[in-house]
């Protein structure tokens, strides 16, 4: 079997992965870094982020304010030491990105413009019109091309972590172009594969967001933390789930019900459209359930009204919103409101790490949405996630580089060689050889519908238990799933089957974690326990892989200076 050797192997080529790669080679120019991504890095889902990235850059702002907003937004489930580290690093990372060429929108004095965002008490969200994710990703990717020691494995799909005596020594990956399974060894592995939105039916996430990295770490024995914390964004296009950025509200857009009323006055009177996402999404559902939504072919919705902003503001500040509304709905947002409904957007939970991206398992790091540091707690504030990718991507890159400097290169002998052979057998001799069985796309659709139905914005004991049961059953069914495409070259169906296998593992942790949290906190809302319960649940859930269903354990929340208080906006 072909094998490659590097100092650091980064799985994922989005914002966190690329930032980690650059951080590693900047710390130690001789560091040999591999970026392994199942898509060309500029296709990574970072590209779809729209609104902006938060950082304290203004005289009127300060770190404590950003930290407090983030912690309050998290419903006090964030680890406050991580948040403090995050807010202090955020400006530095933003300026670094600007120095690398990100085409930020500018104020008249030439500084980076900032806009209002949900849950942020001042304007601190830096932006590049409404395409910050796209620009950030391309800036990082193009900058990464400068470093000869960053080696890319584009369109290589990582299937497993190679572990020797509890130490991660590399990965196995399918080179999609040839269809061969290859091992890529490294002294450290960083997981930066992003979220897993595609386990839900209605999501803003792209096709590639299948939680691969979360599953890789989980299978290797690292816990997935706070997986019940799933963010539902309030403004998705009802048919496709395409995201309409929060910046539309940051720039002054209104949410209206069927009666033309700004209904948020009943839910977040102090913040209105700039309230946090969890509360806004529930507010929309309350309106819809009370019969004050509009009925459409893709379910009930409310309106996002930008007509009062005027064509110029929309053109200058929200050109992508305009493009999306025109292209996918055939409406001009300057003259007509945009129909929206809430849907899955982001995973607060993920691979457990400390604030340097270390997972606790020697040699394994994680950053970005795949990781749970945790700074987002039970609800992430809009525009914190891109900054998070940069701050913790860089931190993980540096930490991995420092650890790699001390380690010797793993060799391609046992046990990793044996593990790789097993993996080859699992994929090519078993999965690909099945001739009789069920099409995987059906299993995937059932998982997505089940997660949507029972692990959505409102949850209760019955729905969650049902989800546990169904996802478990789907896992069994997948064992008999068939891949029709038997070719080796660029077999996307095989990759989809492996992705579904990852997704089911990750999906299972969500209802299992959620069912035990007998409280409502942030994005996790239990209809039978509608209040937050700090006495019992001010703690992180930790899902561990076992031979059976996940085992849920808990770890304490780090409180530094902000005592939990009632969360009122």
């Amino acid at each position, binding site marked *: 079997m072909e094998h490659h050797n590097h100092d650091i192997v980064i799985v994922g080529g989005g914002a966190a992965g690329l930032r980690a790669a650059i951080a590693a080679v900047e710390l130690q120019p001789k560091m040999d870094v591999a970026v392994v991504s199942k898509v060309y890095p500029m296709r990574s889902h970072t590209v779809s982020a729209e609104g902006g990235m938060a950082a304290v850059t203004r005289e009127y702002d300060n770190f404590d304010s950003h930290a407090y907003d983030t912690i309050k937004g998290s419903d006090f489930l964030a680890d406050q030491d991580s948040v403090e580290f995050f807010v202090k690093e955020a400006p530095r990372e933003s300026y670094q990105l600007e120095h690398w060429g990100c085409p930020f929108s500018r104020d008249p004095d030439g500084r980076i413009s900032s806009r209002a965002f949900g849950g942020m008490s001042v304007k601190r969200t830096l932006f590049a019109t409404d395409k910050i994710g796209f620009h950030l990703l391309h800036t990082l990717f193009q900058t990464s091309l400068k470093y000869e020691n960053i080696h890319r494995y584009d369109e290589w799909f990582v299937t497993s972590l190679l572990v020797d005596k509890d130490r991660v020594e590399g990965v196995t990956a399918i080179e999609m172009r040839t269809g061969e399974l290859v091992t890529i060894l490294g002294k450290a592995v960083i997981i930066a594969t992003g979220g897993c939105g595609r386990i839900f039916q209605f999501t803003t996430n792209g096709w590639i967001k299948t939680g691969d990295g979360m599953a890789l770490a989980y299978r290797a024995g690292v816990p997935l933390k706070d997986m019940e914390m799933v963010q539902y964004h309030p403004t998705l296009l009802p048919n496709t789930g395409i995201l309409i950025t929060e910046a539309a509200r940051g720039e002054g857009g209104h949410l209206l019900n069927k009666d033309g009323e700004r209904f948020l006055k009943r839910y977040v009177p102090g913040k209105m459209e700039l309230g946090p996402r969890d509360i806004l999404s529930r507010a929309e559902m309350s309106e819809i359930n009370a019969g004050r939504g509009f009925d459409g072919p893709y379910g009930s919705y409310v309106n996002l009204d930008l007509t009062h902003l005027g064509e110029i503001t929309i053109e200058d500040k929200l050109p992508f919103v305009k493009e999306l509304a025109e292209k996918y709905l055939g409406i001009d947002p300057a003259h007509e409101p945009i129909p929206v409904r809430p849907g899955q957007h982001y995973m607060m939970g993920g691979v457990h790490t400390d604030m340097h991206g270390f997972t606790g398992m020697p040699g394994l790091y994680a950053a970005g949405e795949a990781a749970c540091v945790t700074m987002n707690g039970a609800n992430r504030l809009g525009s914190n996630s891109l900054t998070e990718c940069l701050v913790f991507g860089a931190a993980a890159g540096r930490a991995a580089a420092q650890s790699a400097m001390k380690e010797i290169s793993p060799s391609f002998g046992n046990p990793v060689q044996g593990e790789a052979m097993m993996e080859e057998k699992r994929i090519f001799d078993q999965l690909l050889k099945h001739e009789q069985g069920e099409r995987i796309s059906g299993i995937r659709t059932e998982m997505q519908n089940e997660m949507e139905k029972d692990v959505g914005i409102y949850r209760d004991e019955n729905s969650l238990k049902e989800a546990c049961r169904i996802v478990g059953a789907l896992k069994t069914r997948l064992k008999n799933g068939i891949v029709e495409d038997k070719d080796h070259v*660029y077999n996307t169906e095989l990759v989809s089957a492996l992705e579904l296998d990852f997704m089911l593992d990750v999906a299972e942790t969500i209802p299992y974690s959620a069912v035990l949290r007998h409280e409502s906190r942030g994005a996790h809302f239990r209809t039978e326990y509608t209040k937050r319960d700090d006495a019992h649940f001010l703690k992180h859930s930790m899902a561990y892989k076992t031979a059976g269903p996940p085992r849920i354990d808990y770890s304490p929340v780090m409180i530094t200076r902000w005592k939990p208080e009632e969360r009122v906006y």
Partner: protein
Amino acid sequence: MSQEIATIRVTRYRPEKDSQPFFQEYKVPYRHDMVVLDALNYIKAELDGSLTYRWSCRMGVCGSCGANIDGEPKLTCASFLHEFKDRTITVEPMSHFPVIKDLVVDMEDFMEKLVKIKPWIIRKKDSLVEEGEYRQSSKELDRYQQFSSCINCMLCYAACPIYGLNEKFLGPAATALAYRYIEDSRDQGKDIRFPIVHEIEGVWECTLVGECSVVCPKGVDPMLAIQRTKILGATNAIKSILMPRGGR
């Protein structure tokens, strides 16, 4: 009401089986708000799991899903079925690229071109991050902003007849990106980048066909970037003759 149907003819080519590409026809249930990508996804999920194509964001920004649709290079996620006559649509891989499988093309040549133009900020001396951002006016931003909007979907290469004839031609997107850095007030790398774009197979191969700018799904005008880069090349060449000892 009977279900309306759309007919999708897709190029199939599986190198392990087929010596030649061929068309395969699929019937998919039609909805008015359906894009070509939805039809492909329907085929893959319900009819034929082996159909192979790239996609991800389904909102016109990741750049994965380009194909020749009824002969025109387009993003499959941004082409509605109702735009096509008779609801019969032919989907082929983008022209001018080697095909790996079905609709998946080899993009290594483009990736090499991307690296070649050094798409990063080049400074004589980097400023410290602690000093804050480089100041840039909105006017300075305007000079390069549209050229920074390229999503690398490569439709412009599929549309460019010159690239089809000579793959060494630097081509539209790479030049637009080079020009994006040339025009960025923060960049000081003109002396390094000019020789790259002003090679004979840099901008000079372009004969101003202009299809690149027509097919761009993001409103980038690569032809304009190429023309402006040519003007810079011509003035530099004349200057270097009039002022041989460094008149830049």
